[in-house]
């Protein structure tokens, strides 16, 4: 692990937790850095809704197959175990776990992943979600890397709280609900933009984010304006 890159990453994440930051944008940055710093091939942040169902808040790639792999873990898989136990779940070789998680292992294999790590997102005495890391190559995870991954999971949790500090509610349930709804908005926008421009879901996301950055606006504000059709957004086909 490159120490300099690591330090730079945490500085970058801290810099992005400014007063008016956008949660989805931030968590996507965090999953991207998981890939860059930890040598993961894919990463996702999952939050539990009030039914205890894990829902994807951000992923290093917005393609349907990867999101499916995260969602599938509501039935079985390392992320669900991590969420339930509140402890990290580290699986260096998924092919040995086919009996433990038959569906998950098959689907992960089809997507080209053979090793996986899930780190709990803890808030006081509650587990609110998990950070999920996938690797294409099997083999043990570097223990130092696991510590860093846990630190990144903690940053993700902090961002959830930070997001709402400027608003009224300080109640966790409500904070999570609002966070999950902001993700639903992004999915709706991805659909609309992908269809309009004839692009895939990942490009729809990065196009939207690129537009927001170029115009110095929050991702969710642009998303809302785009789906409502309430203002012209040149470049987004509207």
């Amino acid at each position, binding site marked *: 692990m490159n120490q300099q890159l690591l330090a730079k990453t945490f500085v970058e994440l801290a810099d992005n937790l400014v007063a008016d930051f956008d949660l989805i944008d931030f968590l996507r940055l965090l999953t991207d850095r998981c890939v860059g710093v930890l040598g993961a091939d894919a990463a996702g942040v999952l939050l539990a809704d*009030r039914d205890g169902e894990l829902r994807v808040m951000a992923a290093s790639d917005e393609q349907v197959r990867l999101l499916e792999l995260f*969602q599938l873990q509501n039935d079985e898989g390392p992320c669900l175990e991590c969420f339930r136990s509140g402890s990290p779940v580290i699986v260096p070789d998924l092919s040995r776990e086919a009996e433990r998680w038959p569906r998950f292992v098959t689907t992960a294999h089809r997507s080209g992943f053979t090793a996986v790590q899930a780190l709990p997102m803890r808030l006081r005495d509650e587990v609110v979600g998990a950070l999920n890391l996938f690797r294409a190559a099997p083999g043990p995870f570097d223990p130092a890397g696991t510590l860093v991954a846990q630190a990144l999971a903690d940053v993700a949790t902090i961002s959830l709280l930070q997001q709402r500090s400027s608003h009224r509610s300080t*109640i966790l349930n409500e904070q999570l609900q609002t966070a999950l709804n902001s993700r*639903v908005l992004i999915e709706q926008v991805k659909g609309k*933009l992908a269809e309009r421009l004839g692009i895939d879901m990942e490009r729809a996301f990065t196009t939207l984010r690129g537009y927001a950055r170029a115009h110095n606006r929050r991702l969710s504000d642009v998303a809302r304006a785009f789906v409502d059709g309430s203002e012209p957004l040149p470049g987004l086909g509207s």
Partner: protein
Amino acid sequence: MRPGGRSARIQVLVAEQAARRGGRAGVLDVCTAAVAALPVGGAGLSAMSRTAASHPLCSTDDISEQLEELQLTLGEGPCVDAFLDGSAVLTPDLLTGRLQDRWAVFADAALEAGARAVFALPLQVGAISPGVLDLYAEVPTVLDPEQLADALAFADLATLLLLDARIDGTGGPAPADRGFEDLDGHRAEIDQATGILTVQLGIGIDEAFVRLRAHAYMRGRRLADVAADVVAHRLRFSPHAEPDRAGDDT
């Protein structure tokens, strides 16, 4: 939906109210069930819109009715803030000075009407936000985390019932006959498909949500499966062909 989960439990409570009333489950049943389950005196629900007039839809009692009308007339109050912010506004005690500053007219009028605590919960699915559920109590009241989670679940069910009411009259099976099997799992594809339909049909996001669900109901298919077909381009909606398809196998 998770058997034994919160949403399932809330749905049963609402269905019981509907059965008692002798009708199909609707937003009024959500209000009465919420009042029975939570430490509140009454509940009301208003249809809200950024572009059209907002209006009260139902309420369980006179005080709730007054609260709905007050907020919409004055254009201020927890319900208005909840709608604009897209997050719950919880007011355990209207008698605190800060709140009286924020809603100068509403706070006094609400106290006068007999409300002391007001909780406003936005109905929303991403960009879709058709209204707000308001709960009030006659005494200062704090909802504990469990009660708040229940209140949010009532609001979610109200959202679906309100939007599904628009399917009526299109020839689909009655909501009461459908159950809520599609509540299971918040699949990202359902939200993506909703966005895709806004383009394919040239309609707003609310309407796209209704059309996607109507399509699934009429064909007796799972919503998640229909959505996956839309996202994978196996199923395409068109503004002209859709009415024909809707008619041929129902």
